[in-house]
């Protein structure tokens, strides 16, 4: 590591922000991919991979991704729930690689739910 200046301290902090958003909380948005056996069979893995890819590319630090079990609607898997802080969560269904990328850009980054893929708005939060 080269010698640091005071400004470097700030830059290092910024660079590690994503990890510490995970550890300390304080995120702006949370995406839950439902990965029950049914979800995985229907392709939830690909949805997750695409989502992680988008997050990496867009370089945002305040979005976290978690998984949860079956959402109880196996026929419409893969499912994902997007929660923007202080807004009702939105559940999306029948997802695939392209759809999740679109949702990420429009909803997570842009703040506008993608109605054409949405299943319900304001259902129970999933933790």
């Amino acid at each position, binding site marked *: 590591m080269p010698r640091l200046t005071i400004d470097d301290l700030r830059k290092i902090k910024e660079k590690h922000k994503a990890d510490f958003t995970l550890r300390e*909380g304080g995120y702006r948005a949370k995406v839950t991919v439902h990965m029950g056996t049914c979800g995985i069979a229907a392709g939830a893995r690909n949805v997750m991979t695409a989502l992680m890819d988008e997050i990496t590319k867009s370089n945002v630090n305040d979005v976290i991704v978690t*998984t949860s079990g079956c959402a109880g609607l196996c026929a419409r898997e893969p499912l994902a729930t997007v929660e923007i802080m202080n807004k009702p969560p939105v559940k999306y269904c029948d997802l695939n690689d392209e759809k999740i990328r679109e949702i990420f850009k429009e909803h997570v980054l842009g703040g506008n739910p993608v109605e054409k893929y949405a299943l319900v708005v304001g259902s129970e939060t999933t933790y």
Partner: protein
Amino acid sequence: MEKFRANLMLCAGTGCVASGTMKVKKALQEELRKRDLDEEIKIVLTGCNGYCAEGPVMAVYPDEVFYQKLTVEDIPKLVEEHFLKGRPYQKLMFKEPEKKTAIPMMKDIPFFKHQVLRVLRNKGLIDPEKIEEYIARDGYQAAAKALTQMTVEEIIKVVKDSGLRGRGGAGFPTGLKWEFASKVKSDVKFMLCNGDEGDPGAFMDRSVMEADPHSVIEGMIIGAKAIGAHHGYIYVRAEYPLAVKRLQIAIDQATEAGLLGKNILDTGFDFELEIYQGAGAFVCGEETALMRSIEGKRGMPRPRPPFPAHKGLWDKPSVLNNVETLAQIAPIIINGSEWYRSLGTEKSTGTKVFALTGAVNNVGLVEVPMGIPLRTIIYDIGGGIRKGRKYKSVQLGGPSGGCIPESLLDTPVTYEDIVATGAIVGSGGMVVMDDNTCMVGTAKFFLEFTADESCGKCTPCRVGTKILLDILTDITEGRGKEGDIETLQDLGRDIITTSLCGLGQTAPNPVLTTIKYFREEYESHIKDKWCKAGVCRNLVTFWIDEKLCKGCGACLRACPSKAIVGEKKKPHKIIQELCVHCRTCYETCKFKSIRILPAGYESGPSELVEVTATEGETTKGEA
């Protein structure tokens, strides 16, 4: 840069490594790779979480799920359930001792819930071997502020105003200590850190050095500027190899980053730091002895004054601070003295870390605001007394401290209030004892330690502690006599007033406090030859109460010397000639039918009733 959706903070402190962290880590890595999750989920090795008894432990973020007692066999299922399917794995989650339900979230676990983390702010949250992670948690911001925006006077003022007192035992105001050294004129001065941690059972400082070594270094940089030192040593006992390793890595990284060494952060300030490994003698934790030890001489204390602020290491002005004291400095510089004072009491401000051990359900490291009652620490954080037994006493301050009885459990933990009981806050060792403990034996245990560790330079300590120990040994082995208690008290007071250093000046405390609060126990040892806790082998007769014995045979099978006889479903009997007083039957019996009676007891059941009745009374009287 790669992004992760989860961080697994796996504890790699001394305790957890000993219970298998490294194997668990390997299994986790393999399993994550197998399931293609290794690019989404990151494993971070942290320092001690203070929950070593349940190790290896791991916290999962962002879910905030806390796992304990991980084993290699559990890993495949854990990964599948939690990291693939998102269902926290119940089997490995924290459970409250009495209840069986799993508590997933760290913030709901009582052990963590009541704590306020300042010293331990990075505990389990960073990888201590990566300086970037410390910096990401505002690390070295305080050093930068102190070096560029603050004068020496301003640094000293904020530390003084914060009310911070030395956490190494004596509780001397840190700001004042810095001010004394700062005012002495000298071209060479030293900033020193005390990581000797000699109290048996204490591991606060080890945890800080292992889990957050940079926080100590940062405190030292700020102290060095305050007193005008350009050289420093961290004195660590060689029995703490992991702490030494992590500190050395931290020093190397900080030096490479220009945070130690010449011209720190381009401010023109120089501070070089080295580790000195001590051989682990208790007396070397005493400041003057510690300095002699660094000089390469035999670690023995010398009279003060001159105080180290004037003549310390190599006779140069020096400041020695405890690990935990130094870890408190950076947040004070950043947040100010008012913030620091917002916790604690007027004279005992901020937080203190305690190593809670002994007969409580949750043992581990706890950081609490000063002024919190002992009861809260023992019952809420500690989860009460193990196996539903009764509380008897808590030992505070290690070999220099004392034992506090139930009647004083509401004492707030402040320097003043604890001293008023006869104990001391000390460095923070807190050993809880239940009614299976003999208080005379407890005093003897600590005296064995101090008599052994006394350096021998001054007579009151060298000879005095030996005589105290001899009397205690006599009492516990049945040779106690009238007048022993008074001799212990007189001699104890003499040792306190005439010893050279803090070792002798505090060594009698465990004896004096146990006499003060448990005098009756000393008396029954001496007069009745009866150790009511059934610990001192020469002072007890184990006897089966026929009325309670169900003849289940458990004690008969457990007895190592085959001293118990009896037919199934009929009251059993102990053959006294064969009994070795090992307590095994007492611990084994589910029906509480084993009585602890005075030595030499041989009468029949009618008298048994009488003796047990008085026993019941006295136990009540003690509590």
